[in-house]
């Protein structure tokens, strides 16, 4: 078991003929992900990456292939449209990799998704992977190994760093998911914590947060009330100055809200073990196992 993606995942790639889309489709197929179709308006009828059929619309792609998941690699100004198109076509799970979508576009998208049963991961995220089953994203697949640690993170490379350290110790992962570094995202920490709590294959959870917003505080509340599984947390940006955007659009301390110190304190109070630096995360996870 795992969460959200597995061997049964039938994936559509929106933007499959673009540079990023083509490259990562190849990588996902090599990992063993079932990529059943691509979508690029105007290129329907063509083939991508050898034998993946390309459709003009997500609707056509879903009808022809029975796809249930879509990953989006289209440029920021077209990405909101791509998300809504996938949702309208009945895709259950949408992963948006695209960085730089205007925040107000995401407010609209999110409000529309509130009326449907579609789950959105991202945008501005690395995607997610269930090791050994399906890689739906841009993470390097080979650093992962199947196991029982669930990871949820607002970051990309920092998550790879932690996965790498876990794998090096022989500790595998159930699912590793990047929820994205934007201020408005489709799926929050607490949604994923609930899924990990309910997943029999996940025995403990690593939560990697960062400065900005209050989602880690909401996660802490959930941990205190509902998590029976151990949670190890890390918050990036302890040395970040207030008022400056640290790369991610959402990583900003504004009006004194969203500091690392505050998030670390509430997570610790909620019963999570809080690592002081990333190298400590794997140490704590290993201790939890022994």
């Amino acid at each position, binding site marked *: 078991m795992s969460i959200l993606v597995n061997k049964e995942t039938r994936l559509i790639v929106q933007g499959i003929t673009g540079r990023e889309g083509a490259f990562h489709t190849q990588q996902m197929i090599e990992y063993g992900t079932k990529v059943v179709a691509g979508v690029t308006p105007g290129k329907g009828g063509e083939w991508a990456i050898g034998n993946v059929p390309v459709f003009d619309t997500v609707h056509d792609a879903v009808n022809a292939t029975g796809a249930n998941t879509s990953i989006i690699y289209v440029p920021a100004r077209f990405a909101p449209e791509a998300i809504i198109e996938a949702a309208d076509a009945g895709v259950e799970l949408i992963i948006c990799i695209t960085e730089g979508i205007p925040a107000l576009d995401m407010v*609209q998208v999110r409000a529309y998704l509130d009326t449907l049963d579609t789950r959105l991961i991202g945008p501005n995220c690395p995607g997610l992977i269930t090791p050994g089953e399906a890689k739906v994203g841009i993470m390097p697949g080979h650093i992962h190994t199947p196991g029982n640690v669930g990871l949820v993170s607002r970051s990309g490379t*920092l998550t790879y760093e932690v996965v790498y350290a876990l794998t090096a110790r022989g500790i595998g992962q159930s699912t590793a998911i990047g929820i994205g570094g934007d201020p408005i995202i489709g799926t929050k920490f607490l949604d994923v914590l609930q899924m990990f709590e309910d997943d029999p294959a996940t025995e403990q959870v690593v939560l990697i947060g960062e400065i900005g917003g209050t989602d880690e505080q909401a996660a802490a509340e959930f941990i205190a009330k509902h998590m029976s599984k151990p949670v190890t947390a890390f918050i990036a940006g302890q040395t970040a*100055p207030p008022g400056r955007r640290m*790369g991610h659009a959402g990583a900003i301390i504004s009006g004194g809200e969203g500091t*690392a110190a505050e998030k670390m304190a509430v997570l610790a109070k909620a019963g999570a073990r809080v690592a002081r630096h990333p190298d400590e995360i794997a140490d704590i996870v290993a201790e939890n196992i022994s």
Partner: protein
Amino acid sequence: MNLHEYQSKRIFAKYGIPIPHGEVATTPTEARDVAVRLGGKVVVKSQVLVGGRGKAGGIKVAENADQAEALADKILGMNIKGLTVKKVLVDEAADIRTEIYLGAVLDRARRRVVLMASSEGGVEIEQVAAETPEKIITVAVHPFLGLRDHQARHLADGIGLPREHVAEFIKIARSLYKTYVESDATLAEINPLVITGANKLIALDGKISLDDSALFRHPELAEMRDPDEEDAAEREARRYGLSYIHLDGEIGCMVNGAGLAMATMDIVNFYGGNPANFLDVGGGAQSDKVAAALRIILSDDRVKAVLINIFGGITRCDEVARGVLEAIATLTVQVPFVVRLVGTNEEEGRRILAEANLITATSLADAAQKAVAAARGIGGSTEDITATGAASQQDTAATGAASQQEKGAGV
């Protein structure tokens, strides 16, 4: 991206929000001319992108044109929190009876634009939020419906606005929301919104911050960028598509990925060093971008060591290694480099860098400790330690790291 007060208020005016008559001046003579045109009492306001201008002496009332000229002379060129005043806004002075606050902001938790009002105008809303949060009234706007009159009325009611001003307040609130949405703002605030002696509502001060991701559809707003908002290195970085923020420490950091970049700064700090910058070279960084990144980091002469931490995914370690070599070749590099390459093509990357004799590290903790030690090494010696003269430096780093390890463990 932040707009100046005068820019923000001009945008407000375009949307029908009343603002005082006023004009921008860049010389005392111009300020005098504006004051003459306006007639009577005026306010001379420094236009710099920082808070606390009033406290710093950057906002003064002038009784007449002569005084306006004298005050502008004083304020222009003044240094406020590191920024030089190049423009003043000369506004007609308002007869203030009541000051309130009205702002629009993105509420990340609710995933909606929220309008906030408070009876405590003229002070920073953060301060009100910290001291008397009950005095802030908020409404969340559904993006498909826009701000409804009843929501604006709820705000007016919540801050105890006298009934005769409610209709005008609703109009201003709707205009503010429209301004926010149509400019793709992340913040639009009127502080204070005042009730004048003539019983009018007027936006005395205003502030708009824009969503950088949406500037592509607002070229006219993008042009308003004040280059002084960023320092020279930050401007240069933006040209290369690099995310760089200048800090005060001595260890330059070049990392791929924003989260890992922050975590790298944190671990440097954990082992007793101070990061000189945040720098995310981004995914798939090519060697020329890496070289530019290193040039920008080294343009800060406080940097005593550089820590390169790359986790290769899309980014290939060999590309990064080539960029590092390229940068070293074109620069008179006078600080030690600590390099950690993990992931895609790491072997090849390490092989390329082996020729350059840099300090290499395996784990993140190892890299941070070596960087801290290397920065101290150069600080304690008068001779320049160069990247190519790394043999002696390796020793310094190794011994330094050992003592660091003890310190780190004791933290």
